[in-house]
């Protein structure tokens, strides 16, 4: 336990202050709470898949899962009447009535924190559990799951193991030093349109016959390949091509054909890009895809914040609530983690002045996350923010705590090595020596 040794010079009180100790006692960001790993290998997996709902831009905690009506108009704006959920004592924003009926299925973390207010560095921190600015660019959780649950781990699906609906986040290297092989497959297209033109899989305007004719033509005209039988590079490329054609011409690609679902259900999800992305995510998880990110943008509301929330929150409400219910109905919720948050929260005190006219800025000091399924208990609230939603009041949850908890539920060993070009000893989870702050795994809801 080298990490324990590093902590030896610090008093317990000091360690507590620095956020190094968690509720369960001494928690080394890596190793702590994973004491069995060293001897017994990875923990048993409870979750098979993850659906990440990424609120790109940073959703306001006060206007979603951590309402503060007592803080007054300058903080809560027009949203003054949070609603009761089906779990006594838990209230959420009034614009989320459907999610209010599903609160027994999810838990809310109201004390997420990292203190960073820049999109790209905060995105990195929340999705890797690492501090930004280190020497190495670590992969995000999706790429790590792709590494440990994807093709290298016996995944045989034709659908790539790590999918993003529909566009990548941009200014964010999902795979980090793992490289392009672990990048997500971005579907492109729009699931709310028919057909959902998944980039590379569904090409509107090219008939199946023409696809087959073209493939024949390519094989006949591939002269260099014929001149180089047994070339290892070309063999790898051929295998990739075979896989691609199985998707283009075979049945596997039908997973993206949302018209196979009942119209009633499609309507429940919401006939918009986010709602239908939730439906597509369920279908993908059903087919065994281990990691799906719904990159849901439009949350960076510096101006016109409340108008924008009135448009977006009902969309989020429908899509996410239906997803929870649908997964639960299909007995998939127990094996599927859902996590929903953005890179940070938003400035609790409304910026009424020009040029914002009722906007909210970036706020990394405290924000909220929703987690459900895959071994996370429903119906709980973890941690709390202060009366105005400006600071963590109790039980700070740092990104590494959330990421580490998901790894544990997925049976991914936090101490496992990550391959990297420099051949350095880099592990799935950071240690205290990496300068990471931790409040402990989310044991209270696992």
């Amino acid at each position, binding site marked *: 336990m080298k990490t324990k040794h590093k902590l030896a010079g610090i008093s317990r009180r000091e360690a507590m202050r620095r956020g190094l100790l968690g509720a369960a006692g001494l928690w080394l960001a890596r190793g702590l709470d994973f004491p069995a790993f060293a001897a017994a290998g990875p923990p048993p997996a409870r979750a098979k898949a993850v659906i990440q709902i990424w609120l790109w831009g940073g959703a306001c905690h006060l206007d979603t899962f951590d309402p503060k009506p007592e803080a007054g108009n300058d903080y809560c704006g027009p949203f003054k009447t949070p609603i009761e959920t089906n779990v006594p004592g838990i209230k959420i924003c009034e614009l989320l009535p459907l999610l209010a009926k599903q609160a027994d299925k999810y838990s809310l973390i109201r004390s997420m924190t990292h203190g960073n207010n820049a999109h790209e*560095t905060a995105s990195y921190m929340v999705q890797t559990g690492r501090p930004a600015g280190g020497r190495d660019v670590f992969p995000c959780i999706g790429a790590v799951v792709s590494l440990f649950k994807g093709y290298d781990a016996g995944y045989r699906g034709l659908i790539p193991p790590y999918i993003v609906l529909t566009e990548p986040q941009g200014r964010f290297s999902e795979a980090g030093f793992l490289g*392009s092989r672990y990048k997500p497959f971005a579907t492109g297209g729009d699931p709310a349109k028919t057909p959902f033109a998944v*980039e590379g*899989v569904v090409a509107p305007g090219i008939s199946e016959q023409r696809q087959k004719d073209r493939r024949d*033509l390519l094989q006949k*005209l*591939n002269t260099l390949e014929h001149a180089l039988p047994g070339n290892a590079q*070309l063999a790898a490329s051929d295998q990739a091509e075979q896989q*691609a054609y199985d998707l283009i011409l075979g049945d596997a690609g039908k997973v993206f054909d949302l018209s196979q679902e009942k119209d009633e259900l499609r309507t429940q999800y919401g006939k918009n890009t986010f709602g239908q992305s939730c439906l597509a995510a369920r279908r993908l998880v059903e087919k065994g895809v281990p990691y799906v990110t719904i990159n849901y943008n439009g949350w960076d509301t510096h101006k016109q914040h409340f108008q924008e929330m009135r448009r977006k929150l009902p969309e989020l409400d429908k899509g996410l609530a239906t997803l929870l219910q649908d997964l639960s109905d299909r007995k998939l919720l127990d094996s599927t983690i859902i996590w929903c948050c953005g890179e940070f929260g938003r400035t609790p005190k409304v910026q009424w002045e020009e040029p914002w006219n009722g906007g909210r800025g970036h706020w990394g000091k405290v924000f909220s996350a929703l987690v459900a399924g895959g071994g996370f208990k429903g119906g709980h609230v973890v941690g709390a923010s202060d009366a105005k939603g400006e600071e963590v009041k109790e039980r700070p949850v740092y990104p590494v705590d959330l990421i580490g908890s998901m790894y544990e539920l997925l049976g991914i060993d936090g101490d496992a090595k990550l391959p990297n*070009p420099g051949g350095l000893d880099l592990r799935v989870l950071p240690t205290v020596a990496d300068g990471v702050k931790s409040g402990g795994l989310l044991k209270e809801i696992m």
Partner: protein
Amino acid sequence: MKKTAISALVLTAVLTGTVAVRAQTGLYESPAKLAPESEIDQLVFNRLKQLDIQPANLCSDAVFVRRAYLDVIGTQPAARDASSFILDRDPNKRAKLIDQLLARDEFADYWAMKWSDLLRVKAEFPIDLWPNAAQAYHHWIRTAIEENQPYDQFVRDLLTASGSNFEVGQANFYRAMQNRDPKGIAQTVALTFMGARADKWPTNQLAGMAAFFSQVGIKTTAEWKEEIVFFNPASTNAQATATFPDGTTVKLSTDRDPREVFAGWLIDPKNPWFARNIVNRAWFWLLGRGIIQEPDDIRPDNPPSNPELLAYLEKELVASHYDLKHLYRLILNSQTYQLSSVPRSNQPAAAANFASYPLRQLDAEVLADALCEITGTTEKYSSSIPEPFTFIPEKERSIALPDGSITSSFLEMFGRPPRDTGLESERNNRPTANQRLHLLNSSHIQRKIEQSEKFKYLLKTRDNPRDVVAGLYLAILSRFPTENELQIAVGHFPTDGADNRAAALDVAWALINSAEFLYRH
């Protein structure tokens, strides 16, 4: 437009069948006998003989013209340039082409791109140069390459740079690293200019070298994101002595920047590290594999596959006063470089001893440019910091993008390096299923083919399917089709001439998806 048009001479030749290549060997291999004359060839072929490895034949002119363009200027030859080279009867045409290519503007673009990978020219996380600094840094690198600045001076300028990141481009060398403490700087310097992974060195060796960088200061100014690199003898890190990687210890004085002392040692012609690193990299860049492999992992227990060859190249570089173009010219003119990619030996040691030219998937940027050039389309790039967004002119080539943060999902899918570490292996040219899916069937590629003005023009001006096919072959594969290929491709056209367009686009699609287009060969 004019680039796609086939010259009258070529067209006549195609029509009369004199140019359509008949035998496959003639397609990729030259009938000329191997006659090793240059020193490089003697060293390589002697080694192959010792190992009883049969080298490949020389490559054909059609292969050479495409290869030379792609390797030297990261650009595929226009149809017209390929055909006139192939039909040129001048026995010295290969040497002449090499000289022409080394003088082209795209040479500076392409090699500035490669150096920007190694020197990590990137505005955003984790390198965080900021756009105007990335531009200044790239501009300095490109200018040095364009002017063929001697390599020792290029390195000296980078190592001893001081000043504002916005004004003194090369000063960004010290900012373009994630770890800016003296050890981190020493590791980066060792990697970049010695091809060595200093994290594997004994700790005192690294600490000794780090001391040379213990007085590098960086201070901010009133200008947003401006930083000044300066010699700071008052640094809290400052050390009194420093030790070169060869074990020699020197005293540091407060009136001389220790970086200058280090640079003086590094670029000394007697320093074995310095020339070795760069000649080995140059060989790796042109031949796909280092004489020491990996090219940036030079250490005593990773010996060169051909020590005499390496020593010869080092000697040549030093004697030419570190003229990198001289080095490229030597390598490009060798028969070793001009071997075919069709191997004649399956011995495991063949690849490490350069018995044939290895297949390599095109660099992401080169592929993007080639697709644009063939179809006459463009790509959109923009920088999202600082707001408002900066849009790159659509005519600008992908190889000329200055900043690693200006990118696209296409470039990343095809293995463009993130410019985080400066390791050569960051560039990943291995094929993946996602890449195949994209090229075979994405709307991006379909659109380029469907909307291609160049293909439209070709169809409008050549009503005979044979001419259309020949035009497509020259534009996409830089060569004439064989008679067999012509028959297959023309056979894909409807007999009643009803929809030549769909058939022609299918042929274009097939050639774009063929190994011959996607790989340097």
